[in-house]
């Protein structure tokens, strides 16, 4: 889980690097990028350092202290079992960010592979893209709901379910990028000079598909976190005693009027995380897509 925030930063670096030091500096001057990445970094740090920040066991119950409002002792109050909501939100960050990150990585890998195959091996294109069309015809949340219900309420099933739901969009993006790159002179040149197609894919096509994919994955990170929360709310997501932002809200929703703090804080946490990821995605899109700057 340490990788969540650092991971996205290092990949950003990897993309920005070929464009030189200037691009990286430009990113750092971009307000949305700075705000978005700082919040995400902060949330990730909080998740990683959860045991240090709050020494309390997130599932420890002290029934006598149930439904205490926020105070010095309980920053975010306590829930119906007297568990500390602040601690649960911290530990919930681990699960929610991990799910988002894992869905990003797995669906990113699958999209890259399938997208490049579709673009490179034209005979498979039709089959792959029709399959993606079919998957995209189901509302993503219903598809995820069905798969998550089929696999049982576990972290891994939520990740698999959301990955399947989000692959098609990624494949389309990679394929479109790869098709454009294929036609470019340097790829044509490499082909003429007899480079193997594996080499062309790895050296030329794949690297050039990464930036649109990266921008897309930043948004997927946010969607996946939100979808995890929705699945938990519907009862097929991650189940207590493991805390996730989604299931803390779900558990607290019946007491929303009396003990508003139980569902308020995790909701703010998700919104904040999703907002900063979206800012980050916008910033990356801005920097990596020259067309938008042309509009100036």
């Amino acid at each position, binding site marked *: 889980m340490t990788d969540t925030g650092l991971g996205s930063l290092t990949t950003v670096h990897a993309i920005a690097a070929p464009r030189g030091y200037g691009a990286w500096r430009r990113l750092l001057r971009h307000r949305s990028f700075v705000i978005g990445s700082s919040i995400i970094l902060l949330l990730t740090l909080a998740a990683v350092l959860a045991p240090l920040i709050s020494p309390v066991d997130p599932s420890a119950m002290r029934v006598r202290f149930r439904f205490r409002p926020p105070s010095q002792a309980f920053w975010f109050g306590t829930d119906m079992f007297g568990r500390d909501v602040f601690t649960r939100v911290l530990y919930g960050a681990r699960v929610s960010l991990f799910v988002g990150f894992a869905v990003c990585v797995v669906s990113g890998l699958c999209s890259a592979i399938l997208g490049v195959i579709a673009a490179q091996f034209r005979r498979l294109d039709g089959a792959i893209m029709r399959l993606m069309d079919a998957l995209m015809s189901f*509302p993503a949340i219903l598809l995820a709901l069905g798969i998550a219900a*089929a696999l049982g309420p576990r972290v891994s099933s939520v990740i698999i379910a959301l990955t399947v739901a989000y692959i098609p969009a990624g494949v389309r993006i990679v394929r479109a990028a790869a098709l454009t790159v294929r036609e470019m002179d340097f790829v044509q040149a490499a082909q003429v000079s007899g480079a193997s197609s594996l080499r062309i894919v790895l050296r030329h096509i794949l690297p050039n598909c990464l930036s649109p994919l990266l921008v897309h994955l930043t948004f997927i990170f946010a969607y996946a976190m939100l979808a995890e929360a929705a699945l938990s709310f519907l009862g097929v997501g991650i189940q207590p005693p493991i805390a996730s932002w989604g299931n803390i809200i779900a558990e607290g929703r019946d007491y929303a009027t009396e003990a508003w703090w139980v569902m308020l804080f995790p909701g703010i946490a998700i919104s904040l995380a999703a907002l900063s990821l979206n800012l980050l995605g916008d910033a990356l899109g801005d920097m990596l897509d020259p067309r938008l700057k042309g509009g100036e």
Partner: protein
Amino acid sequence: MEEVALIRIVAVKFLQAVPVILIISILAFLLLSLLPGDPALIIAGEQASPAAVEQVRRQLGLDRSFLEQLGIWLFNLAQGNFGSSLVLNQSVLSAVAERLPVTLSLAALSISFTIPVGVLLGSVAAYFRRTWIDSAVMTVALLGVSIPAFWIAILGVILFSVQLGWVPSSGFTPISQGVGPWFASLALPALILSLFQIGFLARMTRSAMLDVLGQDYIRTARAKGLSEWRTVGKHALRNALILIITATGILLSAAIGGSVIIEQVFALPGIGRMVVQAILARDYPLVQGTMLILGFTFVMINLIVDILYTLADPRVRHD
């Protein structure tokens, strides 16, 4: 000549949809045959004897081989038979038809909130690009796509229904009982459903408008001394029509996807709520059949959007 080209495009799109529909049918079957829990047990009841469960299993054809079951499934589909719900004691088609008005009302209302607001926000942001107005509008739009719908929905119920008493807390009033009550029962759910869509559409509009505003003919128009409003209004917005056609397809998908959760929170008896209940109750055929109908619907929506797009955008037609 042009008409022939158009018909050809439409025909090609139709042909492309055929394998997609077949794949959807197989996927829907596969997905749900993976579900744990025994549908025979659900029908027979938790107290039923093993023999009774076995009998139900035979009746449902669950004792047949996987391929046989798939074959029967496809054969039935070809005849327009989407199966029957185990719990509702009703055919999938009639169950969906019964709940369609609710989901459609919700989707239509939310989209009618979304389009003016979203296009307006996006256009304003594009026009004032890179100013504080742009930042403010885009932050609001981003919040729309970042806040979990069910969370804001619960807060909305507490505020508007419990505290202020403006709208009923849940449930659906059919339009046949009056437009007023119908609207009141859907206003809050539709509004919350449209938050995400507004955020999405505003962002889409902004980037499309930026694209257009940068293009030559707008610059020319400006250079010719046409007023700002006429420039932006006439040229840009006509192009925005194409955007709206594309966006409506996506918004419709988003609305139906989002309604799954909104219907649950507000206890609206729509398709989304029915599917969630069916999944939780392990009502396989109902889930399969409904997913399939939704899948077909989306294929059709995309098809229509593609065709309209071809009609509206001369560039596409001449390609």
